[in-house]
């Protein structure tokens, strides 16, 4: 074998070359300025287009950028003035008038007018936008027809002026309805209905033609009306926001720059939070939930979302409502939340969680103890002709996607069904998209599901079991149920709540679903963060955030301790609260000499 000269030297050189090349990737990561606040988001938003984004990850980010006609109170979720300064309805509730702020502007300085709202709603309804939340506007006169009646090329058959949305002048928006929509303000607060900058979209369309939507969400093209603007987007790494100086309430916004990290692993989220790398994380390893209750920075609250199982009511033996009711009854929900999920989830016998505003859900009739429920379930099964001495119930397949604690929950429920009812359950863990496809095609017997509300009104949840809803996916159709919801849509007040309760009772009686438990928020938040409240939508608007000073933090801790003592709860340990000991308050909050006596009313209207 001949010797090759200088192998070692060449090896050394190439190693050096590798190192040099590697260092290239490191330039360009220098930050312009340190953000005042960093939070952890669970991944990259699928879109920064407010009319395309659905989901938690997108919502967190879009609330930085866009503001609707109204905004939600961060604590009570009641509507507060946003783009609209005030609004009024006609006596019959069929005509709403929104008065926009005079002098409101987009982040590029162009005036924001009622025409921008009209354009936004037109785009939302236009079928070619394919917006998931288009149905929010279907109560508006002509909107449903505009959105769903199309010509062969997929264009709407009707002109947009058939839709009851009109800009009377720059600051007045008129909306006419086909029927009364009692919860319209809840819908209008959603980011999908926020105005869009007509001038900017037109400009992008001129520059990029039909590909304008792919260019729109780059930081340099994104013109917004929310409290922050996007200054940098590093995909799957970091979204950097800086305060929008042209936001109408800019002097109430405390943070000048906020970074949102796209982190996918729960352990990493927790680690980032614990090292002070982030001040808020909405997720952590589920294993740790019981450990966190002793900490002051973990205060889970009920969330408007339900974990439930769907039954395929077209597949025997689940086509028999008695069998379904028996299975639905025979679930030890208390054991489930106390021993499996363990993050404070609420055992639930209704589909709508108890935290829904102005609505008390109907529950599946159940006894005080699981043993009694199991006995009743056996009786129901016997009634349907299954059980000891009768024919045995054939094995049931329970499908779930592997992520999260779905498997634990399924194992425990299957265990209960086997022990109490003698029903064998085959657990099928499926890949997510295969799971969804099977659910949609009704290619399952029992299927794990969840639903989290988009707005505080219970109708948003009950609607998914309408016969025509794409989210029904149980094969269950009930004309009476649909009719009750139709009536409820047009009603208001206690009468509406009663109609919804009747609909829910019908749903639970037919039992195409098994409600299991209500979700809770899972936020770990730096105790120094002010203006952040647990609420049933788990929606948190960055506009209200600020850093508490040491004095305010101490005051809040005292209040919390007193409140817990009064309720006989154990005191929680204080954790590090990194941040400026003097706090970081908005200009509106700063008062000479005192940083504690901040005007609560301005900062957090929920506390009023």
């Amino acid at each position, binding site marked *: *074998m*001949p*010797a*090759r000269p200088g*192998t*070692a030297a060449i*090896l050394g050189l190439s*190693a050096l070359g*590798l*190192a040099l*090349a*590697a*260092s*290239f*990737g*490191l330039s360009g*990561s*220098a930050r312009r300025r340190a953000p005042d606040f960093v939070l952890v988001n669970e991944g990259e938003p*699928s879109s*920064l287009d407010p009319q395309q984004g659905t989901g938690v990850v997108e919502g967190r980010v879009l609330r930085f950028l866009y503001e609707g006609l109204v905004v939600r109170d961060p604590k009570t979720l009641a509507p507060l003035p946003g783009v609209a300064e005030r609004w009024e309805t006609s006596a019959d509730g069929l005509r709403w008038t929104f008065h926009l702020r005079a002098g409101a502007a987009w982040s590029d300085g162009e005036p924001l007018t009622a025409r921008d709202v009209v354009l936004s709603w037109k*785009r939302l309804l*236009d*079928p*070619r*936008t*394919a*917006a*998931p939340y*288009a149905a929010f506007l279907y109560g508006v006169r002509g909107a449903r027809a505009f*959105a769903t009646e199309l010509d062969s090329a*997929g*264009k709407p058959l009707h002109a947009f002026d058939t839709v009851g949305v009109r800009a009377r002048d720059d600051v007045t928006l008129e909306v006419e309805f086909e029927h009364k929509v009692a919860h319209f303000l809840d819908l209008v607060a959603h980011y999908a209905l926020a105005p869009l900058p007509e001038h900017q979209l037109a400009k992008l*369309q001129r520059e990029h*033609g*039909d590909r*304008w*939507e*792919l260019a729109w*969400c780059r930081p340099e093209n994104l013109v917004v009306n929310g409290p922050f603007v996007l200054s940098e987007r*590093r*995909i*799957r*790494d970091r979204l950097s926001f800086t305060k929008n100086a042209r936001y109408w309430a800019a002097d109430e916004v405390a943070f000048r720059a906020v970074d949102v*990290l796209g982190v*996918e*692993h729960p*352990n*990493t989220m927790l*680690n*980032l939070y614990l*090292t002070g*790398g982030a001040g808020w994380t909405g997720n952590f390893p589920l294993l740790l939930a019981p450990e966190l209750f002793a900490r002051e920075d973990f205060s889970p609250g009920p969330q408007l979302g339900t974990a439930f199982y769907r039954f395929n009511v077209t597949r025997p033996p689940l086509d028999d409502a008695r069998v379904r009711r028996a299975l639905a009854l025979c679930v030890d929900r208390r054991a489930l939340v106390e021993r499996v999920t363990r993050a404070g989830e609420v055992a639930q016998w209704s589909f709508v969680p108890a935290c829904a505003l102005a609505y008390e859900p109907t529950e599946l009739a159940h006894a005080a103890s699981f043993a009694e429920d199991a006995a009743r379930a056996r009786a129901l099964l016997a009634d349907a002709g299954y059980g000891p001495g009768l024919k045995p119930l054939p094995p049931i397949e329970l499908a779930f996607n592997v992520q999260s604690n779905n498997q634990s929950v399924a194992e425990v429920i299957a265990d209960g069904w086997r022990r109490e009812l003698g029903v064998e359950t085959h657990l099928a863990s499926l*890949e*997510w*998209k*295969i799971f*969804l*496809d099977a659910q*949609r095609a009704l290619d399952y017997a029992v299927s794990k599901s969840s639903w989290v509300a988009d707005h505080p009104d219970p109708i948003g949840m009950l609607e998914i079991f309408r016969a025509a809803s*794409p989210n029904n996916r149980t094969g269950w159709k009930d004309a009476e149920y649909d009719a009750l919801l139709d009536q409820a849509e047009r009603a208001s007040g206690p009468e509406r709540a009663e109609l919804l309760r009747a609909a829910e009772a019908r749903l639970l009686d037919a039992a195409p679903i098994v409600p299991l438990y209500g979700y809770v928020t899972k936020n770990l938040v730096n105790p120094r963060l002010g203006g952040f409240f647990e609420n049933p939508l788990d929606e948190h608007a960055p506009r209200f955030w600020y850093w508490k000073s040491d004095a305010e933090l101490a005051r809040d801790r005292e209040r919390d301790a007193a409140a817990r003592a009064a309720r006989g709860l154990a005191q929680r340990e204080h954790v590090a609260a990194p941040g400026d000991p003097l706090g970081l308050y908005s200009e509106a909050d700063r008062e000479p000499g005192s940083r504690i006596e901040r005007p609560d009313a301005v900062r957090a209207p929920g506390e009023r």
Partner: protein
Amino acid sequence: MLPFLVRRLAWTVATIFVVVTCAFFLMRAVRGGPFDSERALPAAVEEQVRARYHLDWPVWKQYAAYVGPLNLDEHRARFLGGDGADVFGGVLAGDLGPSFKYRDLTVNELLGQSLPVSLALGLWALVVALGIGLPAGIFAALKKDSALDVALRLGATAGIALPNFVIAGFLVLLFVFAWPLFPVAGYGGARALVLPAFVLGLPFAAYVARLSRTAMIEVLAQDWIRTARAKGLPERTVILRHALPSALLPVISFLGPAAAGILTGSLVVERLFAIPGTGSHFVNGALNRDYTLAMGVTILYTALVSLLNLAVDVAYGWIDPRLAAGRSANQ
């Protein structure tokens, strides 16, 4: 040499073409689509979304639109639309199309941002793999069955046997919490890359160590090494000039494809350390049925594997000219 390179490059292009074609039809054949979600879109909306990405077309036509700059779009009217440009520019024109999951981004943007990150991390991991693996393997071979050898083998086995996510967990506890030397996660700055590069490179270092040890032992037993020693050449020269190149062959053939894996990143390391590299796209592209993104990373990976294997073969010939000679003699 040049004809050889040209021929191999042609093979590379052919390989990419075959892979792209197979992968394209494979992806469209699997169950579940990019727009299935727990929150189903209304039927009319879903139809529109599918139309926008041409999923309503026959698969061959989708393939044509994806590969070629053909603009088969029948000038479908869009909101604010006008010029009838297809969202698919065609792979041949260098446009990998829009992402199906990240609706406001193109695959070119996604890869353009993540590839430099992965390359930086991957190159550092390669430095770790070779910097630790090669010396360890060589010393272990020279001191075969000594305490050093046993210790190195134990270390190497542990490096491979323990899953890298377990190692990563320990390293984070150790160097972030117990002894705060490095940031816990995130991308930016050399310090942030130390732990991930180490975790990514360690298993490969173990491979390199074991492979180079084995090969080195074998080479050292060869007759021409004995001859070289008998000629009275200094041991250093014998090892570095004579034995090492030969012993590198199995390492190189391992490293070719392995480097492609390292350079395109790893899902586990990227998730654990919140590194925005391409590794996650391989898995998430498939799980989200993000067809274009998955195709994009597939093309990238195929090109990289082919080129690195070409480099391996060139390296073979360079280290041992007889191999190159044999290659041309056989043809």
